[in-house]
């Protein structure tokens, strides 16, 4: 069938009208084979203009439309919508830019007219290869997997499940009577947490900046809510083992590690701890206290159901012991428990696995691990916590109160090559808490640079100064010695080497990626940055979107940050998901994508490695490459590399571009 092409040249008032001889172009293109209408208009983007365009399409029964006007960046969408209103697929329309790229940059009217003419001819030539592109929608899972139950993951979970949706269904029966039924739909969140409890690292702190409030009190309502919400399935002591699929439809396998304590039967009386004969250092207290083989990470941890550590439990290692079982009045101990693999379908994934403080033995100059009273900040946090090893008392290993403490900031910053951003504040806050508890203690704070970027930071810092904490600027070359009685902190100032004596030294080592972040990155095939944190898609514009559609990296697993920023990212990622994976709705896909003709594809795999969005995979049975529409963004890099021409970039096909070249190259 012969195409019926309409060409519309906009004068844009004088903007194009005075610079280009529009009538000459219109008169010439009228005579081109296939062009049934060619007209100019004074302002095509106006309501009048759009109405005119719509009428012309209908009246002329046009099958293709070319608009020569301003940049497509301004009104292309408007014109496409008009085409659609007139019953024409919007991709049977093409726009060429004769204002910004011709009229406004070419002072000579004859030259401008000639250039605009060429561009119009190119657009018309393209018309024979224009193809309708239909909007594609797919069924999606509204449910979400959240990995990591720290503040970021909790906030995401609560935002995602805050509200369901009322679905009103109106049905007509045979007699024509209508019946209305109302039902509610809820989004489910599977919250997978590796440790036995949720709350993450901050739930273990007594008081946190910037509010100086008790973190467990601040978090407790959130933790309770998550645990009680019907549409949240909290899977503690669990890990993700496998993820397949893509945005909208992921299938995940989760390993629920055997807890050996029934979550249904246990009432949380903790009577099982006391009789357990095993004692090992509690990693949740920075090794400062001992825990049993059946334990909770810390008093008050939620859910309040202990776990049995199978490495250390006598019974589970073939020895005669069932002390905990005997102590349990509720029959909750189950030595026969086994790991279970469960499978869930979700539409999106939020990774919120947090970070950790580097092991300070990496920086041997500070004597950590060598001298008893050199502690990491996380250990002081636990000493300061009322549910910690000393019940909140700041004590030396020998049980006495310290008379002097040296806080060393910026430990390992040079070695790591980045500032962790939170240490200046939490160290200052800790100094403040210690001063409250031990008003006479002498505190030295060694820093190289102070990082106080937020609106409350300066105020807190000044409060700490007012408490009499002595801040000493050094060049970062501090080291710690011991004279048999006291620790000696040696430091350099601009002019000399000096030292102070202290009973206790507190180190602020760098925040570094959590241990198994690499494993998760491999499961999803997403990149890590040079420091080992998850990479974001764009550090400014998509600061918490992983470079894989439907996957988000929030909180400190994306880089060091404080509670407020972690919560903000958790919430924001939930917002992104809520706006795209609507309950009861399908997902509309990007129309301009690439596609592969499996008849032509030779299975060379060239395209697979080139795709920046991992959108192409190999169909092993058919031995061809297949593009996932949900991941493809339509850049066309694979198309340019395909040796057989099997790959097509929709709306930017070989034929379409060739047709343009043919006219503009003349």
């Amino acid at each position, binding site marked *: 069938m012969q195409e019926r092409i309409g060409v519309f040249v906009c004068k844009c008032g004088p903007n194009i009208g005075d610079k280009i001889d529009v009538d000459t172009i219109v008169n010439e293109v009228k005579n081109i084979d296939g062009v049934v209408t060619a007209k100019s208009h004074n302002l095509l983007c106006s309501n009048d203009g759009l109405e005119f365009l719509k009428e012309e399409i209908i009246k002329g029964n046009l099958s293709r439309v070319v608009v020569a006007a301003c*940049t*497509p*960046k301004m009104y292309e969408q408007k014109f496409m919508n008009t085409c659609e209103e007139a019953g024409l697929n919007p991709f049977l329309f093409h726009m060429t*830019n004769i*204002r*910004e*790229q*011709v*009229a*406004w*940059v*070419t*002072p*000579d009217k*004859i*030259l*401008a007219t*000639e*250039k605009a003419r*060429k*561009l119009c001819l*190119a657009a018309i030539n393209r018309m024979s290869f224009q193809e309708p592109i239909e909007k594609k929608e797919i069924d999606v899972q509204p449910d979400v997997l959240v990995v990591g139950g720290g503040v970021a993951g909790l906030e995401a979970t609560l935002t995602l499940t805050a509200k369901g949706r009322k679905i009103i269904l109106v049905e007509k029966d045979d007699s024509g009577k209508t019946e209305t039924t109302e039902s509610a739909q809820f989004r489910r969140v599977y919250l997978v947490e590796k440790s036995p409890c949720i709350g993450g690292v901050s739930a273990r702190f007594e008081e946190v900046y910037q509010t100086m409030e008790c973190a467990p009190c601040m978090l407790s309502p959130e933790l309770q809510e998550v645990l009680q919400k019907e549409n949240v399935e909290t899977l503690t002591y669990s890990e993700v083992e496998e993820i397949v699929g893509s945005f909208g439809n992921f299938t995940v396998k989760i390993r629920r590690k055997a807890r050996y304590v029934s979550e249904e039967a246990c009432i949380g009386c903790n009577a099982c701890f006391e009789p357990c004969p095993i004692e090992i250092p509690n990693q949740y207290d920075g090794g400062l206290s001992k825990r049993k083989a059946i334990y909770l990470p810390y008093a008050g941890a939620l859910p309040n159901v202990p776990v049995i550590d199978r490495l250390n439990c006598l019974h589970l290692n073939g020895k005669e012991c069932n002390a905990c079982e005997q102590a349990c009045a509720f029959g909750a101990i189950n030595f026969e428990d086994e790991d279970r693999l469960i499978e869930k379908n979700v539409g999106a994934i939020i990774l919120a696995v947090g970070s950790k403080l580097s092991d300070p033995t990496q920086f041997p100059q500070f004597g950590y691990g060598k001298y008893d009273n050199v502690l990491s900040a996380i250990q002081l946090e636990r000493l300061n916590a009322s549910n910690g090893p000393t019940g909140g008392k700041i004590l030396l290993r020998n049980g006495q109160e310290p008379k002097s403490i040296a806080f060393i900031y910026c430990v390992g910053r040079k070695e790591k090559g980045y500032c962790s951003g939170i240490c200046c504040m939490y160290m200052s806050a800790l100094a403040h808490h210690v001063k409250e508890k031990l008003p006479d203690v002498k505190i030295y704070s060694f820093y190289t640079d102070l990082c106080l970027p937020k609106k409350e930071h300066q105020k807190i810092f000044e409060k700490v100064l007012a408490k009499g904490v002595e801040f000493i600027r050094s060049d970062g070359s501090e080291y710690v010695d011991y004279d048999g009685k006291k620790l000696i902190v040696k430091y350099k100032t601009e002019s000399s080497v000096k030292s102070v004596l202290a009973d206790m030294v507190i180190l602020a080592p760098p925040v570094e990626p959590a241990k198994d972040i690499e494993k998760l990155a491999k499961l999803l095939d997403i990149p890590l940055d040079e420091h080992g944190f998850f990479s974001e898609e764009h550090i400014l514009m998509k600061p918490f979107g992983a*470079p894989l559609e439907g996957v988000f990296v929030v909180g400190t697993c994306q880089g060091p940050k404080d509670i407020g920023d972690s919560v903000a990212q958790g919430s924001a990622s939930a917002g992104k998901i809520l706006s795209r994976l609507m309950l009861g709705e399908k997902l509309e896909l990007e129309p*301009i994508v690439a596609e592969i003709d499996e008849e032509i594809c030779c299975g060379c795999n060239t395209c697979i490695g*080139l795709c*920046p*969005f991992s959108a192409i995979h190999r169909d092993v049975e058919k031995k061809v490459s297949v593009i996932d529409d949900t991941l493809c*963004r*339509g*850049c*066309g*890099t694979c*198309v*340019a*590399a395909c040796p057989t021409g099997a790959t097509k*970039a929709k709306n*930017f096909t*070989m034929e379409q*571009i*060739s047709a*343009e*070249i*043919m006219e*503009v*190259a*003349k």
Partner: protein
Amino acid sequence: MKDEKLAIVTFLCNWCSYEGADKAGNARLNCPSNIRIIRVMCSGRIEPQFVIQAFIDGASGVLILGCHPGDCHYKKGNYKAIRRISLLKKMLRQFGIEQDRVRLDWVSASEGERFAKVANEMAETIEQLGPLPELKILN
């Protein structure tokens, strides 16, 4: 109208360089009229074949502009373009086509002036080289 004969087929990526060219227009900077623009989504879409076809169809030069390295909207398309175009340039020499007739460069969405500068430089280069002698081998 001598430059009208020396067509320079210009491929612009949709995100940075196309907007850069628009900015040149917003600022009413003069650009040579033989710069003839074709929009593609990314510089990574440019097949060597497009360049060769442009010469066969009569172009005297081909200009390919993308986002600055590291800024590609699709992350790495422009790096792919670097590899393809440098290989292509080596091949073109064998056909007797001067390498300067093909230029790959970067213009950001705010760099109207840079677009005008690159466009004018390209036009000058092509004017000096003159029209492409008939391409017997390619035909």
